[in-house]
C-alpha cells in the first residue's frame, strides 16, 4: 500500500448524507412575537430614518450619505472611497458606477439592486424642483416724512418683537 494523498471529488462516494429539499409553512404571527421579545436591534439611520437590512449596508449608507469627511475625501479624489456592497469583498471604487459594475460583473448582483445608495440619491435628483429659501439682504430702512427719526432700525436684530425690553424702550422714545 503506497502513501496516498487523496484528492477530493465532485459527488463524493459513498453519498453519506442524502439531502431532501424541504419547504416551510410557519405561523409567522408566532415567529413575530418571538422576534419582538428578543429585542433585536434594527439597522435604521438616525438621520434620515432609512431602514437597512444589515450593519454593513447601514455603515455604507451613513458614510456615503451623511459623512462630511467622506464627501471631502471623495471630492479630493486621491483614493477610492466606495466599498463593495458585499462585506467580505475588500475592493474599493472611485465612483458608484464603478462599484455597481463590479457588483454586477463580479458578484452577479441584479442591475436594480434595491439597497443601492446611489439609486436613492438619483431619485431625489429626479424629483420636482422645489424653491429653496432665498436669503433676503437687509434693505435700508426709509420713510416718506422729513422726520429726523426715520424708523426703527432692524439691522442686526433678528426678531425685534421677540424682545420685550426692546419694544418697551422704543415706546419710551416715542413718548
Amino acid at each position, binding site marked *: 500500500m503506497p502513501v496516498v494523498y487523496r484528492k477530493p471529488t465532485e459527488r463524493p462516494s459513498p453519498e453519506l*448524507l442524502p439531502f431532501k429539499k424541504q419547504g*416551510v409553512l410557519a405561523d409567522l404571527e*408566532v415567529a*413575530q412575537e418571538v422576534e419582538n421579545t428578543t429585542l433585536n436591534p434594527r439597522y435604521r439611520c438616525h438621520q434620515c430614518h432609512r*431602514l437597512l437590512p444589515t450593519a454593513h449596508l447601514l455603515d455604507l449608507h451613513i458614510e456615503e450619505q451623511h459623512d462630511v469627511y467622506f464627501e471631502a475625501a471623495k471630492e479630493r479624489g486621491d483614493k477610492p472611497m466606495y466599498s463593495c456592497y458585499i462585506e467580505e469583498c475588500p475592493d474599493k471604487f472611485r465612483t458608484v458606477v464603478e462599484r455597481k459594475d463590479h457588483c454586477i460583473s463580479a*458578484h452577479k*448582483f441584479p442591475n436594480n439592486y434595491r439597497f443601492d445608495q446611489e439609486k436613492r440619491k438619483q431619485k431625489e435628483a429626479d424629483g420636482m424642483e422645489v424653491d429653496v429659501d432665498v436669503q433676503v439682504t437687509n434693505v435700508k430702512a426709509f420713510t416718506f416724512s422729513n422726520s429726523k427719526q426715520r424708523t426703527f432700525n432692524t439691522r442686526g436684530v433678528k426678531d425685534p418683537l421677540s424682545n420685550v425690553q426692546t419694544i418697551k424702550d422704543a415706546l419710551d422714545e416715542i413718548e
Partner: protein
Amino acid sequence: MEPTSQPPTKMDDTFLRHKIREYAKQQRHNLRTNANDALRFGLGQIKQEICELENLSVKDVQGMAGRIKRRKHATTEDMYRFSHAFLQGNENINAFAATPGAIQVIVKELTGPNEMRRMEAADCLCNLSLGEAHVCEKITTLAGSYLVTFLHSQESRLVRSCLWTLANILFSCNKSAKNLLQMQLVTKLWKLYTAPTDDVHAYQVDAGVCLYLIAAQVASAVSSEDRLYIAEHLQEKQATDPAADYYMFIVYQFEVVNMELEGHWQHLYNFFVAERKFDLVKPTDRLSLLYGVRVWANILAMNVKIKIEHQPFISTLNKLFGLRDEGLNKELLQLLRNFIELSSVNCVQILERIQVFA
C-alpha cells in the same frame, strides 16, 4: 373542489392557520424545539400530514399570480397562500414561475420595509425553491443577492428561511450554486457555521448543511480566496460545537489541508482526537469519522511537522478500529500506512499499541 381563479374565502384560511398552529404546537411539544422553529415539509408531503387542507390548483395559482402582478404588491394573505400552494405540488410552482413578473413582486416584498412581509416573502421563495433547476435559477437571478445579504440580518426567522432556500437551490442547480459562490456565500456561511451559539441566532446546522452541499456538488468552483478564508478560520470550530459533524467533510472537499498556515494542522489534529462519542448511529457520525480519518491521512501524506501526542492518537485510532466498520477500517489502514512513512515519529512504539479487529 372545482378549480377556480378566485382565491378561497377568508373562512377557509382561518381554518388552515388554526390547523397549522395546532400541528406546530404538537410538533414543538413532541420535539421539544423552541417557539422559533417552523414546520418543514417536502414537496407534496403537506397533503399527507394535514389531510383537511384545501386543494390549490394551477388555476388558483395563475389567478393569484396575475393579481399580484397587476397590483405590483402581494399581501400577507397572498404570500401565505402561495407558500401553501407551492408545498402542494410542482405544477403549482411551475405555473407561478411561468407568470412573467410574479417572482419580482415577491422579491419586492422581500426587500421592502415591512418586516412581517419580508419574512413571508422569504418563506414563499423557500417553498418556490422546491421546484426544478430552472425555477431555482430564476430565484437566484432575481433574489440571490438579497438571500445572501440577509444572512447578516438580525431577524433570525428571516436568516433561517434564507438558509433553507439557499440549501434547496444549492442542491438543485449547479449553475445557480456557482453564481451564489460569486456572492461570497462561502465566507458568509462559514461565519454563521462558526458563530457562538445562543438561543435565537443558532444557524450552525443550517449553515453546515449549505456548506456540505457546496462541498459535495461544486467544491471545485470555490475560489482560492474562500478556501484561504476557511483555512485561516479553521480554529473557530471545535469538535463539541453544534453541527461539527460536517466539519471534516468540508475541510477535505475544500482541500484546506494543503495550504501552509500557522497552526491549522495542529487544530485539525486536536479536533480529530478530541474527547467525544465515537459511534455510527447517525449518517452524520459516519461522515465525520470517515472524512476525519481521510483528512488525517492526507496531512500525514504531506509529511508536515506537527506535535502528535501518542496517548490520545492511539486511543482515537483504537476507538475507531473498535467500531468494526469495513469502509472506515480501509481509511484507517491508509492512515496508518501514511503514518509509518513519517520520518519525524518513532512509529514502532505507537503501532505496537494499536488494536486492529478483523
